[in-house]
Each structure stands twice: as structure tokens, then as C-alpha cells.
């Protein structure tokens, strides 16, 4: 599999210098983007499309904390297989159920402010989880431990998407 960090000349780590990544992404894009080859031959246009697609994919993966963590774990041979292996601590699952009930309540009550509140609490929880994932991967090299944390983070991401969709029902 491709190592997305290599593509940008970065060392694989969860802690990310987003500004450096963005700079390199743009430098590479300015070399390979289809806009540079609109007047070129088929072979160059095809190569440009393939490269740009790959660079976009790599950039998107590294900019997103969940995808970045999954990618690092995959580079270490850990496939999260999140669809099949979802044994989560019971306490965490109960908490998730409660949050979803709260979300339903906000939707039925057409309460956009409740959604805002849920979202900002969620953002704080995500930040703290991301900090823990960074410590597990970058400092302790505890990839198995990190995998459990990443699964939790994925739950929170999905909840965030559900809140996002709920705004449309509330508005």
C-alpha cells in the first residue's frame, strides 16, 4: 500500500504540522494538476489525472485525524476493520446511546441550540481523544491501544455527521 506520508516527504506521526503538509500539497499540485496539462497530449493528461487523484486522496487522509490514525495503524499492520470488529467497552456504548437519545430529543423539539451545544461538547471530547491517540502512537508506540481509541473517535465522528444531518430537519 502507499505510504501517504512519503508522498509529502513527511515522517509518519499522528502529530501533524498541518501548515507544512498544506504547503507541500500545494507545491505538488501545482506540478501535477490537470489545469497544467489541459493542452497536453492524452498520456500526460491521464498521468496528471492519476497523480492528482492520488495526491488528493493522500492529503485528505492525512488531514483527517481518524483517517490519519487508521493509516498509521495500517502501516504497522493493524487493520481496524471497523465494520466487523466493534467490541467496545459497555460504558462507552451506553454513553453513545444516551447521546443519540439526546439528539432525537433535539430533533423532535426542533431545538437548533441544543444541536449547537451537543456539537461543541462533542468537539471537546474529540480533541481529548485525539490527544490520547497522539500519545499512544507517537510516544508509547502502543498501536494496539491506539486502535481502541481510534474506534471510539470513529463513533464520535459518526455522531457528528448525524448531528450535522439533523440540522436540516430542524431548520
Amino acid at each position, binding site marked *: 500500500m502507499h505510504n501517504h506520508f512519503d*508522498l*509529502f*516527504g513527511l515522517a509518519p506521526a499522528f502529530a501533524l504540522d498541518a501548515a507544512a503538509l498544506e504547503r*507541500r500539497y*500545494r*507545491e*505538488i*499540485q*501545482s*506540478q*501535477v*494538476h*490537470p*489545469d*497544467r496539462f*489541459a*493542452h*497536453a*497530449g*492524452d*498520456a*500526460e493528461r*491521464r*498521468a*496528471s*489525472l492519476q*497523480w*492528482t*487523484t492520488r495526491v*488528493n*486522496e493522500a*492529503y*485528505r487522509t492525512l488531514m483527517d485525524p481518524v483517517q490519519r490514525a487508521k493509516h498509521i495503524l495500517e502501516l504497522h499492520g493493524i487493520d481496524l476493520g471497523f465494520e466487523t470488529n466493534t467490541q467496545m467497552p459497555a460504558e462507552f456504548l451506553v454513553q453513545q446511546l444516551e447521546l443519540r437519545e439526546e439528539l432525537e430529543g433535539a430533533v423532535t423539539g426542533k431545538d437548533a441550540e441544543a444541536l449547537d451545544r451537543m456539537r461543541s461538547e462533542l468537539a471537546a471530547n474529540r480533541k481529548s481523544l485525539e490527544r490520547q491517540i497522539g500519545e499512544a502512537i507517537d510516544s508509547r508506540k502502543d498501536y494496539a491501544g491506539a486502535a481502541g481509541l481510534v474506534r471510539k473517535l470513529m463513533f464520535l465522528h459518526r455522531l457528528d455527521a448525524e448531528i*450535522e444531518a439533523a*440540522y*436540516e430537519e430542524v*431548520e
Partner: protein
Amino acid sequence: MALLQISEPGMSAAPHEHRLAVGIDLGTTNSLVATVRSGVATVLADELGRPLLPSIVRYHADGRVDVGYAAQAKQAVDPKNTIVSVKRFMGRGLRDVAHVENAPYDFVDAPGMVQVRTAAGVKSPVEVSSEILKVLKLRAEASLGGELAGAVITVPAYFDDAQRQATKDAGKLAGLNVLRLLNEPTAAAIAYGLENASEGIYAVYDLGGGTFDLSILKLARGVFEVVATSGDSMLGGDDFDQRVFCWAVEQAKLSPLGPRDMRQLLMKSREAKEYLTYHGEAPITVRLSSGDVVDLSIDTETFCNITQTLVRKTLGPVRKALRDAGLTVDDIKGVVMVGGATRMPQIQRAVAELFRRDPLNNLDPDKVVALGAAMQANVLAGNQPTDQDWLLLDVIPLSLGIETMGGLAEKIIPRNTTIPAAKAQEFTTFKDGQTAMSFHVVQGERELVADCRSLARFDLRGIPPMAAGAARVRVTFQVDADGLLSVTAREASTGIEASITVKPSYGLSDAEIERMLRESFEHAKEDVHARALAEHRVDAQRLLDATRSALAVDRALLAPRELEAVENAVRALEQVLTANDARAIKQATDALNRATEEFAERRMDEGIKRALAGKKIGSL
């Protein structure tokens, strides 16, 4: 019609020769063409000095076609054969078209896209649009004094795949080399950003005749990056006319109107709307074919009341785009207003209120999209020195997905993904011995397939019989820089590959385009073969130019034998270029394309290495 001036073999075009390239704003109400001349983007006017071309096409029984003001003048006399706002029908089925009952056309519900029966036969929206594009192409060629090397055509950012494909087909049908489909708000942002040297996060609020877009962009020096886009491709200035129309029908207690009366009253409704931008009250006076006279007056307050739901409808997409971008109104440095409909005071007020700042109106809302498109066309044609051009990163507006069990849509590429993009997903058989699988490609945000837009259906056959769940069918979605999708499915578990590539079905097949081209030639008495020859020559010349300039820079990347192979292919193409043999030119072009594949790959690798070495592009 010659498509280019052919140079003598061996006399390649000078490397910095200026290629004629234009930007075209193919609007619902008006269309424009612009180009960059001496570094300045300008809208090209017609022989009477008029910059706008009304997007109105009238068909005569003898096959003659009027486009623009001539057609506009007759719209109330000949409403059934005079197509206005055709953009609303692009890539749409009959059931998707709003206000069908108020449109005076004889619709034909064709598979894929609605068509209209006219005195000159049944016409698809693609053909109607291509008539508008042909006029703009001729206008540009007359005013620039040469054949066009290429054009950028703008589309609403919220156009789905079918609507984009239809627009590109219309360009091809008009004989244009479509360099790129460019999103209208993005084009506006280019024009605005370059004009004002803006940096920071901007929103573009684009309310056109038939579509609404809201895009949020990050502007930095040399980079235009779309962060999120949202909108409503069935909402525009036309809907405000419709509200006035319905109000007038109700006030005057009119019984159902015939096509002519309907068109008259719609025109007067539009005039009243425009008048109300600068006045407190507007008259609506129409003499109906029955002899009755409608004599009404509408004031600003009434107009605001009957249109306030429309104004509110634009604010939902604004909030959605902000949420998608993870931003609040406080992060937005300015709101650029685009589209004639943004002149309405109630729109200006609503935007100012939501963003808590005055919107930016310093560019002509009718022209800014065409100007931005011209600037981008100039870059794509290779006219802009590379140290002065820019990087444009755009996104897809709507998620692309596939139907799974139970009529649910599974998203493969989510909305607001930067393009070009690709994503693969694996599917498997659910019956023992199953040898075929059906796929249904959809676009939209809703969970149920029935609520999304159906783009294409296709079957993958020839899967070797296996136990249920053993086959591994990999479906790959690829979205190109125009935002157009192609889908490939491949069974790979046994090493036997069955693959199929589909283009969404709303676009016309190559055969249909060829038929339309033939028909239009028969009418114009042009020779299809001459045209094919000219087109192959354009392609060949472009490839020769590109190969020569690539060799000039990166010759060292090829081993002597490889270099020889490329040079041989170049010579072979040069030799057939002047002969009148279209097929030989095509074959030699394909051969040169194949011969340069490896070279192209290495040049990309080299580009990436250079980027990582931190060298500035300008210093290369």
C-alpha cells in the same frame, strides 16, 4: 470550416504563441463570451456592441434558427417554438422540471432528458444550448480573428453529473474544444480575487436566472481553494417572475391562459420585478388575445411578501456550506454577490443580515462569471507564464454513491471532496453461482435511493460461478477535473477480470452526438469528413506542440532508445499531418500518445520531486 491554420511540417508553433481561448457563461437568462486580451479580461460584444446574448432560441419550420435578441422579440408571438431558460431542462427528466404547467412548450418525455417538439422537429436541451454556444463561438472568432483553441464553459456549482455532462455535450456539439467545465461561483471568485488581490475566506452568493449557488473559498496568493459548496439548482430569478405571474393571475382572476398570453404575462412580470429594484411600485399591463386588458400595479411590499419564502430558501444552503466548512459567519471576510437576481434589494438585505456585513457588489454581477472563465481559459490554454498562474482546487457539490440492499444509497465519494478524486469499494454476490451483478449509480445526500438522482444503471456480467459472498467485485468511482464521473467495476477474486466503464446515462452517447452533428451539418451544408479531418489535425497539432515542449525540457529523462522511439513517432505524425487522410492522422496521433506514456509518467514523478525539493516553480 477550417479549425486551425495548419503549419508546415517541422515548423512547429512557436512555444509562446498565444492560443485563442474564451470563457463562456452559459446562463439561464443571458449568455456571454469573454477572453483575455493583452492581459486584460474583456467581454466580447456583438456587432451592435451588446455584451449579453439572451439565452433564447427560436426554431423555424424551414430549419432556420434565431438566437438571442431576434428570438426574444418573437417569444410572445411564437412561444411554442421559442425556447427560453433552456438551462432549466439540461440533464433533467420531465418530472424534475418545475413549473411545467406554466411553460408554453410541447414537451416530449424522452428517456434521460426531456425534449421539446418544435416546428423544426424534436429538440433536446443539449441541441438548444449548442445553438447559443455556436453563436458565441462565431462572435468570438469574428472579434478575435481566428479559430478558437479552446473554451471554458461555466456551470452552476450545484449542477449534478447529468447536468454537467449535458453542458459538455452541448459544447462538443457546437464544435468547441471544451478545456474545462468551471463552477460559476469559482469563476467569480477568480475574477474578484485577482482584481482585488484578496486573501482570506470568502463566500460567493450566486443567484442566477434559474440556479442558486453558495461557495466558500480560501483565497491565498496563487491559490483558489473551494472549501464547501451548496445550493439549489432549481431556484433562481425565474422563480421570482413566477411568483409575480401567479399573483397577477390571482389578482386579475384570469382563467387558464394560452401559450401567447402566458408568455406575455411572464415577460411583464419579469419587467415588473426588475423595475421594483429601483422603484416603489411597478405596473403590469397586458392586452390578452381575448381583447381583455390586465391592468395591475404591484408595490415593493407585496413583492417582498410573495417572494419571501424564496429569499429564505437561499439561506439554508448558506448555513449548510458554513457547517460543512466548519466555519461561522465571523470567519468570512467578504460575500461576493453574483448573478442579476442579487440586484433585488430584499436579497441584499437578507445576505447582509445573515453575514452581519454589507455584501460586495463592486463587480458587474452579470459579467463577473464570464470574466473569471476567460482568465481560467487563458491559463488552461497555456498563455499565462507559469510563475503568474494559479492553482484552482474545486470540489464535487453532491455525494456520489451506489444503491445497496433495501433501496439504500451508500456514499462512495462524499460531497465537498476535492477533485479529481477516486474511491473504490468492494461488493460481493449474495447467491451461489451468481454470474452477474447490477449496479445503480446515484447522486445526492439522502439515504433512500428514491430521493437521490439516478445517474446510471449497468450490469457486470461474466463473473465466474462461485459460492455466495466469494466473488470480489471492486467498483471504482473516478471524478475528473470537470467534476464528471466514470465508474468501473471489476471482478478480481479469481484473476479473471470482467470490467465495464460507464458514463452516466443522462449524457448523450457518442452515437447520439454524432447523429446531431450530422443533422446540423446537413442543414449547414458542411462536410462531416472535412470537419473530422480538421478536428484530428487540431488534436495532432496539440500533441505535437506538447511533445516538443516536453522534450525541450525533459529530454534527459529518456534513454537514447526511448528518445528515438518518441522522435520517430513525432516524425511519423508530422508526415501524415498534411495529407487529407483523417484516419492516418488519428492512428499516428494514437501511436504518439502510446509512445509518450512512460515519458509522461516520468515527467510527473520529476515534478513531484522538484516540488518536494522546495524549488519555486518559476525558477525551473
